[in-house]
């Protein structure tokens, strides 16, 4: 670990100085990096950007409500083996054939250093992070079926995203480097938009930003539009060739920004009457 490459963001991903710093700290300390933030602030995309920036392969583990910690390491395909033994297909004596490695397992076995994204860890059961404690600490696990211990050849860069990290246990958090991506300020947002819409008219972008931040400030809007929605919105406006002036009076393609019926209705009747 004499020379570590540093993360600088990529041409497709604008990272704040703060975030770049934290990514580098996490890589250097070899701690998992836990990222929280509003939806649409680029938590998941960060892993892609880190992998691209370091030139490393990315392994993604999308956590679901039914995910178990074991799934990330390996799964022993019992049913396949039973079936093979019943019908005499395949070599049933070679257990190795029935061990299917998950993203973490693959990363540990890889000759090359990898970036592992554990996406939306909070979706899984409350116990899920605790079950991973040892594996993340020691970067090794045992395959019980074969008695083999798999130790990481190259400690992977682990990036974990979470939407509601309150659920994560303390012991787990202690091992992570934590960063909260706050919603970008208009200036930062302009940089981000430049990446996505390099040819967009300045005037349109300016006007859109103004309307967008206004919309976010409305207390009636419950699901606040995020960066990705703004990018889509500008894309839609450009394709339709909407004149920036129109934006002063109305919101064309509002459905791109607001996805909830109640928000659309609320916006139509600002200011809203309270209940009786």
């Amino acid at each position, binding site marked *: 670990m004499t020379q570590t490459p540093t993360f600088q963001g990529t041409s497709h991903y604008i990272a704040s100085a703060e975030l770049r710093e934290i990514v580098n700290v996490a890589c250097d300390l070899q701690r998992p990096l836990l990222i929280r933030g509003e939806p649409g602030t680029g938590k998941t995309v960060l892993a892609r950007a880190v992998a691209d920036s370091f030139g490393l392969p990315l392994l993604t583990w999308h956590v679901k409500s039914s995910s178990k910690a074991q799934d990330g390491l390996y799964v022993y395909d019992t049913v396949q083996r039973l079936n093979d033994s019943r019908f005499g297909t395949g070599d049933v004596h070679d257990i190795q054939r029935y061990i299917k490695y998950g993203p973490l397992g693959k990363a540990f076995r890889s000759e090359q250093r990898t970036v592992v994204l554990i996406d939306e860890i909070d979706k899984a059961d409350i116990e899920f992070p605790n079950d991973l404690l040892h594996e993340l600490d020691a970067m090794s696990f045992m395959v019980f079926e074969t008695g083999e211990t798999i130790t990481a050849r190259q400690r992977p860069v682990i990036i974990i995203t979470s939407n509601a990290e309150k659920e994560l246990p303390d012991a787990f958090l202690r091992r992570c480097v934590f*960063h909260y991506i706050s919603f970008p300020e208009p200036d930062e947002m302009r940089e981000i938009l430049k990446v996505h819409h390099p040819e967009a008219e300045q005037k349109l972008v300016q006007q859109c930003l103004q309307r967008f931040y206004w919309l976010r400030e409305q207390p009636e809007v419950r699901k606040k539009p995020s960066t990705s929605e703004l990018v889509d919105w500008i894309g839609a406006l450009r394709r339709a060739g909407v004149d920036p002036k129109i934006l002063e009076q109305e919101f064309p393609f509002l459905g791109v920004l607001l996805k909830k019926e109640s928000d659309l209705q609320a916006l139509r009747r600002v200011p809203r009457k309270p209940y009786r």
Partner: protein
Amino acid sequence: MLIDFLYHLRSHGLSLSGKEWLTLLTALERGHAACSLSRFYYLARAICCRNELDFDAYDRSFSEFFEGLSGAEAIDSSFEHWLQNALPQRLLSEAERAALEGLDLDEVKRMFEERMTQQKERHDGGSHWIGTGGTSPFGHGGYHPSGIRVGGEGQQHSALQVASKRLFRNMRRDITIDTRQFGLALRKLRQWGREGLASELDLEASIAATAQQAGDIQLVFRPERRNHLKLLLMMDVGGSMTYHTQVCEQLFSAAHQSVHFKEFRHLYFHNCPYDFVFSDMAQQERVWTKDLFAQCDASWILIVVGDAAMNPYELTHPGGAIDYFQRNEEPGLLWVDRFRKHFPLSVWLNPEPSAYWQRPSNQLIRKVFPDMFPLSLEGLEQAIDRLRASPHAAR
């Protein structure tokens, strides 16, 4: 000094152990903060904070701790006073500006302390004393590339300024956050059980059955694990509750969106539930309480949301209900008591901070309904912990 800092953070409620301290030391050793206070601010925050709810406490303690070190608190209050009433900034030529570059921090600090002890009076626009609008390295509103700012507003974002801005103030734990947080809190109420269509392979049973069949493979399936929770949400609407509409809506939509419940019902009342409550917010559709009791048994969890703020006779007198059409023959408090007795698993969430819970109607209600918690994320968590600890809770 680092140890002191960590203890200072601990005193502000961040739970830190030696592990964080060692991590921070290692990071510093590897040159991560590189002698910059603002980089140290972000570094230590990444290591010491567990979630953004901690950021505010971190900011407060960071500014407190490092403010003390910079010696800023030693400034005389009369200094402060005239520094705040500054004269406008004056324009400098390039040559003047160049001459000002190049004082290093230690020198500036030393000079500042020296001059503070010498200076006796207010000073504006000069180049030596601590003052405003001038080119002396000290004071504010002036121009000096390596100066010390005293009071007033600065333009550069230093770590201390970032910390003292307390951007994350509205993320504190005791303030209600959003629907999702509520939803997550409610998720803790889950009661697992297996019921319904068998769709999941039961490995243990399959092996046992296969062994029974002398190796002829038998696959046994079982139903998936599902949540058995039944939740009844009763909300006080109208009158003084109008001020709390938003937070109530958040709780409501959190409960509503939550697909985890087996059954979910929501009902409304005005100030106090009586012999009937309402199934709509406009209080048109009546639901008889006795029917409700028949439909929902004691396995339901009842969450009442209300500010318990009303005239006490609405609770103590027959016919005391605030709405004339209610014409209750029995006092409201009796009905509150019945709800409580029918649903042993019940809590009352009050959108008002607990400091206001001294009003008579509130005290009356708490006599029969003691489990009252503030309607905030913290309160909801406490309420849920109480429900889970209850002897009636399903395992």
